[in-house]
């Protein structure tokens, strides 16, 4: 503000007016655009992200989504899985058949190890040299079949079902992660 000659103003009022003028003046300062070619020059200088960084970020995002899905889906999955017929054996070479809800150890087959059966009927026509664990399952030994070992019945409680469901889910996740990493 350039005061007119001879004008007398009260100091406080003048300060107030001047400061309001300054605020208006600051708000009305002209735009100062960035120089032409700013973006192009910048992009040419950018340190492009390494593949590792991008991959890590993608994995982090995928991991967060997977964790959410697991949290939301696992109770249902565990309940479904725990009712499914399944077998586990400590003998990796055992030829055991699973037909519907029936598990068959065929004639002439020898299982060298333990056998766990879940939610199924076990028919032994061959030979089992180990302990048989039955969970929500029953056993029928058909001649000339035999079990050289103990037969144990696992408790058919909800806790056992939960444990089995969790084990199954763990196995599924492990195979999925291995597949994704391959």
């Amino acid at each position, binding site marked *: 503000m350039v005061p007119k000659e001879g004008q*007398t103003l009260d100091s406080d009022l003048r300060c107030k007016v001047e400061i309001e003028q300054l605020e208006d003046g600051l708000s009305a300062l002209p735009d100062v655009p960035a120089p032409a070619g700013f973006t192009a020059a910048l992009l040419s200088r950018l340190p492009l992200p390494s593949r590792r960084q991008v991959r890590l970020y993608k994995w982090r995002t995928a991991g967060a989504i997977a964790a959410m899905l697991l949290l939301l889906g696992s109770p249902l999955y565990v309940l479904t899985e725990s009712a499914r017929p399944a077998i586990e054996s400590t003998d990796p070479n055992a030829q055991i058949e699973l037909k519907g809800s029936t598990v068959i150890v065929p004639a002439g087959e020898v299982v060298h190890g333990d056998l766990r059966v879940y939610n199924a009927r076990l028919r032994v026509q061959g030979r089992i040299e180990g302990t048989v664990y039955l969970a929500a399952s029953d056993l029928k030994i058909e001649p000339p079949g035999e079990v050289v070992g103990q037969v144990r019945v696992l408790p058919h409680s909800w806790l056992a079902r939960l444990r089995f469901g969790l084990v199954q889910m763990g196995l599924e996740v492990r195979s999925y992660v291995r597949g994704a990493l391959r």
Partner: protein
Amino acid sequence: MDLVVARLIQRAKLGEVNAFAELVHAYKDKIYAFLYRMTGDREDANDLAQEVFIRVYSNLHHFDNNMRFSPWIYRIAQNLAIDFLRKQRKIIYLDEQLGEDNDMSWQLESQAPLPDKVAEFKDLQSAIEAALNEVPLMYRTVLLLRFVHDMSYEDIAKVTELPVTTVKTRLHRARENLRQVLVKKGYYYGSQGGTNVGQ
């Protein structure tokens, strides 16, 4: 605006350079203008603005999408400008000497108006542009953010990492300081009341 920016950031985080270019396009003029008025030099402002965006790009992975982008990028710009001016020894007043509680002892003494100095300024804007370079940096920052970049007190607090109350106090003093610089330059008359001006 915030949603658009958040999506651009998300895409840029996944390595999409085009998304980052859009982000630069949206903010380059504001950041350049801010740095130009902080440093008073176009070339320095250009170099610093480039550096700001490079830092943004390098640190995008640390940016939390729940935060607002604008205060974040202005904070980077402000910090770079302060570092730069300290290194260049272009800071006229050291912030450390200007405690918030002192009794305005930093104020410039009022002077008698000098008509030839008044004539130097074509208008208030050019007078303010010139005066801003003489305002202490901590005041210049808040003046620019508040009045030129139209930021809320809360956003200025985020940029300067100060409490909102301190921002308000600082702004009050900054305006008075700017006025005093203009008084010194002869654009305004001194604050000693009741004088016959223009004589």
